[in-house]
């Protein structure tokens, strides 16, 4: 969604008429293969018009007249012409990108399988999990247990560590061949890099950071996304392109209960081109993960700019400790280095839904509020009675936290 132009969105017809579209479409030029045309040609609708990889731009020392403008321009025209003969019914199945690193599945992949299961029941479709890596066959089991009917497995040494281009190649080829209706990816560092690249390659729409997903009887995925830091929510549709792609942050959906595994594993071919391999991983460094992730904690104590200093930050941590909870924060504590990126709550951080959230010295900007709105109970402690967080709290405490928090810790320790 381009928020810049969102104010025009109401003027736009919700479902675009094909006739109107055809008037705007340029006729196919000679040389356009029309590979994007849906259906009638009998070809895959997503055959690229120019060979990928041959269009790497040259550096400035080389000839600058050989830029790939021609191929690019015609690709787009054809993509639009493709809308004239939509054959969306041929696209079936709800897919999830099963993210793994070093043989560990990310939790959010399982959460997405839960969401995919929900959509698949409505759509009477299969759930597919797309698993890439090297020697990761054993991860198919958990994927089947958490809701996949089929695991598409690409196992290759070249896929051991995530790199944008090889992963894009394998997944885009698979999408072209199998034609899934919906493809969900986690909004992690890997998923957020991969999803837009894949969507651009297969010429389809993508929405980011969905807070809810549903499907209507036309098979349209209704993707509710935030804009303006969560102040505005909008439903995004991708009516004429397939697959309908969306990313979802960790913690937004809940994973289901593991079931007895059924379904199967389908090995998929890996055809990576040499030009996909020019980028190299030199080093991956993993710091210590926090003892308890804030998405899973029943209690989260979060601090904001009002904390003031490292010494006072200890009160936030101590309160979390006596509550057996996790520590989180807003942007300023991250900038100060009191918390890590993993602990930042809000629109550009984590979405949490604990039983109890205690916000200390947090003003309550909208970007933070969207990350905590699903908490069962919200307690706000701030000496500024005008702090916006009070408006979104169940219990508001107007006081200096330095006087309150030590007493709370003492009391909670006393009674265990």
């Amino acid at each position, binding site marked *: 969604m381009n928020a810049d132009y969102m104010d025009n969105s109401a003027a736009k017809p919700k479902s675009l008429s094909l006739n109107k579209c055809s008037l705007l479409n340029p006729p196919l030029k000679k040389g356009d293969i029309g590979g994007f045309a849906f259906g009638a040609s009998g070809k895959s609708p997503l055959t690229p018009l120019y060979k990928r990889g041959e269009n790497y731009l040259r550096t400035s020392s080389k000839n600058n007249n050989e830029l790939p403008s021609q191929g690019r321009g015609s690709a*787009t025209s054809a993509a639009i012409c493709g809308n004239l003969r939509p054959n969306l019914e041929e696209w079936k199945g709800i897919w999830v990108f099963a993210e793994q690193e070093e043989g560990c599945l990310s939790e959010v992949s399982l959460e997405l399988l839960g969401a995919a299961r929900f959509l698949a029941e409505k759509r009477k479709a299969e759930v597919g999990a797309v698993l890439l890596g090297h020697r990761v066959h054993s991860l198919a089991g958990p994927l089947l247990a958490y809701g996949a009917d089929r695991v598409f497995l690409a196992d290759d040494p070249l896929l051991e560590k995530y790199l944008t281009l090889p992963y894009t190649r394998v997944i885009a080829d698979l999408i072209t061949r199998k034609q899934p209706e919906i493809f969900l990816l986690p909004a992690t560092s890997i998923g*957020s890099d991969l999803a837009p690249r894949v*969507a651009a390659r297969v010429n389809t729409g993508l929405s980011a950071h969905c807070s809810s997903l549903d499907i209507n009887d036309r098979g349209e995925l209704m993707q509710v996304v935030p804009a303006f830091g969560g102040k*505005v929510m909008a439903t995004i549709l991708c009516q004429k392109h397939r697959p309908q792609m969306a990313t979802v942050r960790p913690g937004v959906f809940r994973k289901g209960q593991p079931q007895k595994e059924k379904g199967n594993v389908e090995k998929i071919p890996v055809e990576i081109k040499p030009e996909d391999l020019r980028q190299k991983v030199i080093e991956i460094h993993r710091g210590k993960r926090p003892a308890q992730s804030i998405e899973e904690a029943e209690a989260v104590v979060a601090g904001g700019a009002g904390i003031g200093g490292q010494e006072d930050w200890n009160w936030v941590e101590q309160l979390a400790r006596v509550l057996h909870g996790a520590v989180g924060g807003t942007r300023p504590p991250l900038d100060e280095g009191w918390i890590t990126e993993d602990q930042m709550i809000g629109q550009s951080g984590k979405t949490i839904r604990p039983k109890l959230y205690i916000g200390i010295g947090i003003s309550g900007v909208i970007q933070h509020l969207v990350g905590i709105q699903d908490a069962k109970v919200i307690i706000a402690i701030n000496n500024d009675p005008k702090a916006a967080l009070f408006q979104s709290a169940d219990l508001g405490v107007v006081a200096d936290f330095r006087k309150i928090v030590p007493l709370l810790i003492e009391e909670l320790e006393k009674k265990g």
Partner: protein
Amino acid sequence: MNIIVCLKPAPDPKRWDSIQLDPITKALQREGIPSVLGPLDKRALEEGLRVREKHGGKVVAMAMAPPSAKDNLVEALAMGADEAYLLSDRAFAGSDTWSTSLVLSKAVIKFGTFDLIFCGSYSVDGSTGHVGAQLGEFLGIPNVSQVVAVESIVGGMLRSRSIVESGYRILETPLPCLITVGREINTPRFTSLFGVIEAESKPLITWAAGDLEILPGEVGFNGSPTQTGDVFLPEMKRKAQMLAGEPEEMVPEIIRKIRQALG
């Protein structure tokens, strides 16, 4: 070295409180909110300037935005960019990230040769974080996301450090490539008075759809694969029970609430 920096002028976050939704037309009303360059845009530009200072060359700022965003490009010129391009046309209105990336890619191709493109990892308003990777794809060049340090550029290879969950990743990527920058990459410089004066004589060129050989319907509302349906302002208010007074009096009430919540 030719360095292109893509910027996204967006409504000033400090003024988002005044964004309203027309209850009847459901159109967002944000008249009078000026557009600004976001923190990541400025960092992308700063990094471009630093690479130029080290390796020589030219920094080109580009933005697809309404005509009013000229001011934001003047700011980029004042910060140190050598030239700026505003991609502006009614036909671009309603572009989603796919369509925006396509417009940018056509402008980059029209501009000519380049070695590096910098973008912010995500914009302040839409915050999808899609455009960097999609622009890379449309140009057929590799992209690197969430870069917090450009460690070296040697022999046509760029070594970068990206943040990932609980750590970082160091990659080597051949030029030309596209880098999206994260918050930690640098602290953008302030604009000097001299820079502001100098900006007046630097080229600021506007390209419309026709200049980029973009056909009507290819981008914007009709060319975008995604459409925006219902728009709403979420209700996040709760009715707080407010406590004030002596800490000793308040603590038992807070403890009661905590125990109740954790059941």
